[in-house]
């Protein structure tokens, strides 16, 4: 009998310790926001910027904060990807971030639904700041999920069209295209072949052409990704069919998938000075506002023009809109210094001068309505195009989803199959894509 009870005791102790281990791994925080932000404290801030100029800009933004809040010190960690941030948010601990910023707005749904970042609604309320009147509409949208505002916008990105003015002149084109049919004609006119390849390609339509992703094309068709019940709308909303058809037409007319892919393999990389737009290898480029600074830095031997992306012919009156996304920031659920962390988030995202200064340094679009109008905003006159796209009420973004950007990857995957000719039936493909998106969401819940 004593032996038996010892066995039971061992088994109990073992299961208790396993249970303890298992719960210790769940990263649940019981701290809440009860730290005193007026006391001397140090918080960790992780961000994703990596270029030297950008890292310096973050440092000067934080220096401004520390000057205004002498008791709060900030340890900055640069060049953090979402994967690393996500893992650190789960691990917690002293070295883990209190405040994070991420480039991937697509991950907001995941951040909010998992509880990785705290809901900022109570903080905004306490500070008397109304997000709806502070941030532009699209940015206000992509920083929350299911009523949980776990993020705030920290600068924004707007997508438009870059074009080679010199090449346009040579081809006899006087103004940037406003509709997709004009765009098609111009892209063909601007394409100069050389043997089996190109001397100059009018436009690289393939989905592997970096920012030429499905969501960036589709923004011009104002799609609704999910219906009211949260089911994928990809097979129902004609915007998707129209978007895929347009892109496939461009691929076919500009030389076909294979020829374009082979040409693409010869091009320099997206973030380097040998980017094909800088070198004149492509005459038009779908890209974000940051490209202007990068392209000018590469000192191209042509004049750069900037315009909004074209719109479908039947939506000509909406010319001027575009795709909006941006960097987001939030407070870690594991943080024990959430009030101090909020002070930093509030400063970075709502202090007009701070936002303007940071936008000036990074060459991104400011993320508050006040900063967008600030006279302190300095920029190249062409940059105004992106500010206008950001402020355009018809501009769209992609909604947050419980599993982050998985639905966008699924749509893009179908795009690869369709552009290459592997998938032939568009309608059936869209139905399959919608089904896959719904299954993935059900799996994540």
């Amino acid at each position, binding site marked *: 009998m004593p032996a038996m009870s010892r066995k039971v005791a061992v088994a109990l102790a073992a299961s208790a310790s396993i249970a303890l281990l298992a719960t210790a791994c*769940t990263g649940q925080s019981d701290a809440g926001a009860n730290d005193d932000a007026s006391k001397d404290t140090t918080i960790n801030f992780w961000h994703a910027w990596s270029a030297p100029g950008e890292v310096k800009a973050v440092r000067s933004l934080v220096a401004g904060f520390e000057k205004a809040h002498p008791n709060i010190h900030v340890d900055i960690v640069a060049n953090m990807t979402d994967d690393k941030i996500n893992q650190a948010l789960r691990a917690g601990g002293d070295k883990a971030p209190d405040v994070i910023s991420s480039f991937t707005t697509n991950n907001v749904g995941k951040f909010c639904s998992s509880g990785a970042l705290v809901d900022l609604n109570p903080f905004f309320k306490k500070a008397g700041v109304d997000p709806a009147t502070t941030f532009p509409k699209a940015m206000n949208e992509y920083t929350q999920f299911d009523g949980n505002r776990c993020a705030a916008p920290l600068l924004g990105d707007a997508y438009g069209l870059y074009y080679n003015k010199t090449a346009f002149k040579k081809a006899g084109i006087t103004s940037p295209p406003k509709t997709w049919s004009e765009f098609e004609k111009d892209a063909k006119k601007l394409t100069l072949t050389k043997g089996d390849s190109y001397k100059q390609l009018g436009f690289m339509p393939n989905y592997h*052409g*970096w920012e030429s992703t499905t969501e960036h094309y589709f923004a011009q068709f104002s799609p609704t990704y999910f219906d009211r019940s949260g089911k994928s709308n990809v097979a129902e909303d004609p915007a998707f069919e129209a978007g895929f058809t347009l892109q496939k037409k461009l691929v076919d007319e500009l030389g076909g998938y294979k020829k374009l892919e082979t040409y693409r393999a010869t091009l320099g990389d997206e973030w380097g000075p040998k980017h094909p737009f800088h070198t004149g290898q492509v005459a038009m480029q779908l890209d974000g506002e940051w490209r202007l600074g990068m392209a000018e830095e590469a000192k191209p031997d042509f004049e750069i023009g900037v315009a909004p992306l074209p719109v479908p012919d039947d939506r000509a009156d909406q010319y001027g809109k575009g795709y909006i996304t941006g960097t987001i920031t939030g407070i870690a659920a594991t943080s024990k210094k959430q009030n101090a962390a909020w002070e930093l988030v509030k400063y970075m995202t709502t202090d007009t001068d701070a936002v303007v200064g940071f936008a000036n340094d990074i060459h991104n679009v400011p993320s508050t309505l006040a900063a967008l109008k600030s006279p302190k905003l300095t920029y190249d006159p062409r940059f105004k195009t992106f500010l206008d796209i950001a402020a355009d009420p018809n501009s769209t973004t992609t909604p947050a989803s419980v*599993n982050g950007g998985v639905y966008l990857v699924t749509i893009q995957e179908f795009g*690869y199959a369709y552009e290459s000719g592997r998938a032939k039936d568009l309608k059936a493909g869209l139905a399959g894509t919608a089904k896959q998106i719904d299954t*993935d969401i059900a799996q994540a819940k």
Partner: protein
Amino acid sequence: MTTYTLRAKRRRAAFRTAAFMSPWLIGFTVFFAYPLISTVYFSFMHYDGFKPPTWSGTKNWTYVFEHYPLFWPALRNTLWLVLVMVSLRVVFGLGVGLLITKIKTGTGVFRTLFYLPYLAPPVAATMAFAFLLNPGTGPVDSILEKAGIPAPGWFNDPTWSKPALTLLALWGIGDLMVIFMAALLDVPQEQYEAAELDGASALQRFRYVTLPNISPIMMFAVVTGVIQTMQYYTQPLIAGKVASGVIQGAGTQFEPGYPDKSTLTLPQLVYNLGFQRFDYGSACVVALVLFALSMVFTAFLMRRRGGLIQAGD
């Protein structure tokens, strides 16, 4: 002697055995049994790393096998690599080993030349291959084109991406070459002499003397090769990333397995599901599939060893 003291003696003996075994036992429990049991446990749970895990039955299993679009392509690729890459690596490693043991002059130079690539870090080696095999600007294709041979798309063409990875693996054959060389030099010389006296041709000498002597090493090369290939992660990931043009960008969505899922392997899925989607349950399912596959392959090879490994090995 009473039963009591006998029992105490036995218990002491059992305790002693356990004490001597404890280093292994602890290692086995901490690094093998516990992770394996938790992997099985979590494969039946819904767990995202934040909220406490909840029981989800076989949901993760059906998701991976029926609804996760990357699973079957990744499994097919992994099997392809296990069959083609491992066999070619063994044949090629043995071939190079044979060649180097046979040549009379400059052995040192050749050994170094064949061994050096093995020391290249996998990321750098893959990037170098992606550069060499670039269908537009790479030197390999421009030479092929000049010779009038149709140049393949390599990492940009789904039918050529795995052969390109195999080429990369063959280039880094140094480890196997060294092992085979040691085994070949170990074959007793008198057996060759005897065979020669009996009038055996070079091919016969290889078949009846060399092969039986090095069969345990062949076995070792195949089993470790299978296990390595099951864990093949870095090279296909980097090749796919470089060829697709996605380096790391603001919010860039990465399509794993470019082109057309042809460079996707099972370990990439474990990362994708576990550390990108934070669906730990499904990641555990894929990990278990990998584990089961490794066990099946190894068991199969061990059963077949009768023909390969002779008595007394």
